[in-house]
């Protein structure tokens, strides 16, 4: 046990004395933390609309003003409405005028108005047109939210980004641990250790311990800086982080053993990093992904992390994901240990 601890201690010193590794590790953590804190912490749920009615404002003013989730600004003329949109005081403007006795509705949007807001304005304009013309749609419309209704407590974009940041921080360990193993083999320092009473299993256990210790420490530091840890999430987060750390260690064993130089390690490591990052985009762009993403092991880390951290789910809601990730980790770790053992003997 003491021999394993000695190697772990040496490994940690060695990793952080490599300036490149030390810089990318801490830079990643602190830069992501800064980005997180700079991003908006609340979702703007109010939809601001400007209205101008040439006639009949009194008839609709009360109804429109009571519309939920809409901040209404009244304009006294069409030019004032255009100015409101141009200055981005409102997201869209609706003008109701009479042209040769026929009602005319114009929807004003600026070039900065997002497409979904523009479309929403269009729907509101059409609905208003039916109402004003005295022919409301003969349809009963109900809105039912399946799952927690997040109206008023929507997840800010930065909270989704936190998961991406955590996975990126974990992925940096590919380089740190991979390089550590690769150097031990290339520089034959592993030989120097293995002619002492240290056995190959002890040597490999020390490397696994170093990888898990570093990845967990960095993940927990990042969690504090990214406001992830709370009383409710600390335990599930650490459990998931442990599975993530094991995944990183397992892949690093393979990378470190097959890489013949730091350049090779960087190339392989970047490739794995990109593949592991892909599932995080399913959080940022929901719905826009292919079925094969579920085969990427990090998907089964990212989905539970997002659910637990952002939506208050619990670990038991993600048992299949954890089982898949755990099985993958065991298979890759065994493969990594096998190839490393072959290189050492």
């Amino acid at each position, binding site marked *: 046990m003491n021999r394993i601890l000695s190697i772990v201690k040496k490994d940690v010193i060695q990793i952080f004395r490599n300036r490149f590794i030390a810089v990318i590790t801490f830079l990643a953590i602190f830069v992501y933390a800064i980005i997180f804190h700079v991003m908006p912490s609340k979702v703007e749920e109010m939809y601001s609309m400007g209205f101008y009615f040439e006639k009949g404002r009194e008839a609709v003013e009360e109804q429109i003003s009571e519309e939920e989730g809409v901040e209404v600004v009244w304009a006294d003329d069409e030019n004032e409405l255009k100015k409101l949109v141009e200055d981005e005081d409102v997201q869209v403007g609706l003008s109701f005028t009479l042209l040769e006795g026929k009602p005319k509705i114009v929807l004003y949007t600026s070039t900065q108005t997002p497409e979904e807001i523009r479309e929403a304005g269009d729907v509101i304009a059409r609905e208003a047109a039916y109402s004003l013309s005295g022919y409301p749609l003969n349809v009963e419309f109900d809105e039912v939210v399946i799952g927690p209704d997040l109206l008023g407590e929507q997840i800010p974009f930065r909270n989704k980004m936190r998961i991406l940041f955590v996975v990126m921080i974990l992925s940096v360990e590919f380089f740190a641990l991979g390089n550590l193993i690769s150097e031990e083999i290339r520089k034959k320092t592993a030989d120097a250790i*293995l002619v002492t009473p240290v056995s190959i299993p002890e040597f490999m256990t020390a490397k696994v311990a170093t990888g898990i210790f570093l990845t967990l420490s960095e993940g927990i530091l990042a969690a504090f800086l990214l406001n992830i840890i709370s009383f409710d999430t600390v335990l599930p987060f650490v459990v998931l982080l442990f599975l993530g750390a094991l995944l990183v260690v397992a892949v690093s064993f393979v990378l470190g053993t097959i890489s013949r130089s730091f350049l090779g390690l960087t190339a392989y490591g970047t490739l794995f990093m990109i593949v592991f990052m892909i599932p995080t985009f399913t959080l940022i762009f929901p719905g826009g992904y292919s079925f094969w993403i579920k085969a990427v092991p990090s998907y089964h880390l990212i989905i539970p992390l997002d659910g637990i951290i952002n939506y208050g789910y619990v670990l038991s809601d993600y048992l299949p994901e954890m089982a898949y990730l755990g099985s993958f980790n065991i298979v890759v770790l065994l493969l990594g240990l096998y190839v490393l053992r072959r290189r050492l003997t």
Partner: protein
Amino acid sequence: MEKVILAEKIAYSYNKTLAVDHISFHIDKGEILGFLGPNGAGKTTTIKMLIGLLAPQDGKISVLGMDTAKELNKIQAQIGVCFEEKNLYEEMSAIENLKFFASLFGIKKIDAAALLKKVNLLVEKRQKVASFSKGMKQRLMMARALINYPKVLFLDEPTDGLDPVSARAVRDVILEEKEKGATIFLTTHDMMEADKLSDRVAFINEGKISVIDTPENLKHEYGKRILKIRYRLDGRVEEEELSLEDKDMSKRIDEINSKHSILDMHTEEATLEDIFIKFTGRKLEG
């Protein structure tokens, strides 16, 4: 005499290339065995089998009376190894390197300063190894090999490529350890070093040991002692070799001296390299 290292018909192949071909030898307690051979002869593979980094594919090795296949950890606790490669942790200081390796042997208190003083590195003890010259690294490797006060030392090309000062320092440490009673297995392709340090030498070539004996015996048995005479003949410098065993040698010297002007004359002993070439048909270096 106690046989501290005993190798019996050991063999090792890389894929289908036989690197070590069923060789047998032993080393007595307190003895230095010089393992001489050119690059690729099988020296490093042999040392790797002796220290447990490779398991012999055939044959048996015992070190300090223990079988390497069964009691490797116990053996490794009592041996010191100095590798050919400078496999030190370069981002760590000299003293950190020594303390780390001491901890692997379970040594809690180590007089690292005394070891560094022995190899003339005390002043540089807190310097990162990355800033060391090749000679300094080699001396630190020697200090590392001594960290557990080993009974047996395995030294793989310990002075290869070193400046004369560093080579001398390493040789002094080897002789000092021999004085203390350590048994030493030394691989080298430097015949001068082998001659100076070894009690016996073994010639290895293409995985086989050609001969094992003391340098003196080998020179006496297989070498040729000669006298070289250079003299002036019609304005040219001529050179002639006379065997010291030749009964007519003095007669021939008188003859040259009477007819020509002798410039110089000196005796020459056969070198280990001459004998190696005689056995293997190959030069030691390269």
